[in-house]
């Protein structure tokens, strides 16, 4: 498919046919118009004097943040431990709950395509589309502030992610192995245990570790809405304008994230 036009007896190559070229231009025009319209609306809600002042503010903040207040670190071990617990226990809860959901959502294992599968898919979508911070916001009003709300928030948020990846893994299994186990006269539960589970177990372990890594990141900020962990002292330090403490907390968060990323990469590498 080449768009070639004859001009003064010479063949001229074009990238697209004329109509396709016009359609492309029209799409760009519409896109640009939408962008400018949205920008205009946001610009109306912005106090530009504050924005103009931002570089000076940023410089000021940077000066106030160094050096980090290293003495403050003793107050941070406990919140840090809580953060790791929120992420780990939340991941455990999420992955365990994700198994039945994934089992019901996978086309080849679901008990009922008409009723149970849509319900399982709805659980997955709602869990995935609500951020853990919003889950935490809800749960703090229900269970009260603290680590428990954080664990539940991370757990509920993880269900969707883990169940989605797991049910895709279940749908991709090799049916002939399942068939072979079934041919020995195995019951439904035995087919699941010996035909399906061994095939998805590595994927399941990989997904759990991957989600744990994400959860460490997410649990560092849950404290901002009162759900425990390192976010609590962070929020307190920001409110008190104790910027040297803020910079220390940020450094610790980055260090934790880097370490957890390394651990998860190592573990996934050894699994796969």
């Amino acid at each position: 498919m080449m768009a070639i036009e004859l001009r003064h007896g010479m063949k001229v190559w074009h990238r697209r046919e004329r109509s396709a070229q016009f359609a492309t231009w029209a799409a760009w025009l519409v896109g640009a118009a939408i962008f400018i319209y949205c920008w205009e609306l946001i610009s109306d809600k912005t106090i530009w004097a504050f924005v103009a002042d931002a570089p000076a503010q940023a410089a000021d903040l940077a000066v106030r943040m160094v050096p980090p207040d290293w003495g403050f670190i003793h107050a941070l071990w406990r919140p840090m431990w809580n953060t790791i617990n929120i992420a780990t226990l939340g991941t455990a809860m999420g992955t365990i709950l994700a198994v039945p959901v994934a089992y019901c959502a996978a086309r080849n294992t679901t008990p009922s395509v008409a009723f149970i599968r849509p319900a399982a898919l709805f659980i997955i979508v709602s869990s995935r589309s609500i951020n853990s911070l919003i889950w935490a916001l809800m749960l703090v009003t229900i269970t009260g502030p603290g680590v428990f709300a954080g664990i539940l928030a991370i757990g509920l948020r993880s269900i969707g992610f883990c169940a989605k990846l797991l049910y895709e893994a279940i749908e991709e299994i090799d049916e002939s192995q399942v068939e072979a186990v079934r041919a020995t006269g195995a019951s439904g539960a035995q087919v699941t245990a010996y035909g399906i589970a061994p095939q998805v177990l590595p994927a399941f372990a990989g997904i759990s570790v991957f989600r744990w890594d994400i959860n460490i990141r997410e649990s560092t900020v849950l404290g901002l809405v009162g759900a425990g962990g390192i976010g609590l002292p962070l929020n307190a330090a920001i409110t008190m304008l104790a910027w040297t403490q803020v910079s220390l907390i940020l450094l610790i968060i980055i260090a934790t994230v880097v370490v957890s990323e390394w651990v998860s990469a190592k573990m996934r590498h050894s699994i796969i």
Partner: protein
Amino acid sequence: MSVVAIAPRRWKKPPLIKRAWLRWMIGLGAAVYLTLALGTTEVNWARVWEGLPRGARFFAAFFPPDFASRWSEIAEGILESLWMTVVSTVIGIAISIPVGIGAAKNIAPTPVYYFCRGILAVSRSFQEIILAIFFVKLFGFGPFAGLVTLSFATIGFYGKLLAEDIEDMDPSQAEAVRATGAGWLQWLNYGVQPQVMPRMIGLGLYRFDINFRESAVVGIVGGGGIGATLNTAFDRYEFDSAAAILMVIIGIVMLAEYSSSYLRRWVQ
């Protein structure tokens, strides 16, 4: 074959972790960790118990959610989130294209490569919420702070994937374009861009999705959008309005997910 093998053998499922000592160590470590973690996690069961009726009230609020009484606030918040999503996705992708090209090892000179990789690393290592807190401090409350946050996060995501895609491209096609005597920009436009375009359009739509989801969150710390409305609803214990907002968010995310998968199929 030894004589022992005559005795009836039982088949055992092969374990996931082959080395026995490692398996035991991991099991033991997990047990020790769990007792420690559960032992030090304070749960105020009295408070949880007290909150249960409130939780029941919250779930009851979903049947039916109250769209009507706060509709103008909800609509305004959602629209603001959508504007923010559109603008931040466009700006973020526009900036991430040069950064991504610079971070592709096969077409960028080494100093540029390290500089651009540095930008990507910085942008990816901070959580959106933490960025949002600082941008709210710098730019004041409102959607502009959220916009900057989301654009910044988009750069790290999109630039990294673009760079990886360029690194994976077929060099012979680019070579062929260069052999015609094309300039650098022409080479980029006709040799590289067509190869990465289909995937990058898909990823752009996916990032749009993510940005909308995140825009619901940056509002909690003052970055504008639906998050602010949601936060207010929770603070006032107006669960039926909160339920309505959550339903709208879930609906839009589902819509975006379906339409983006449809669009992606259409583009490819």
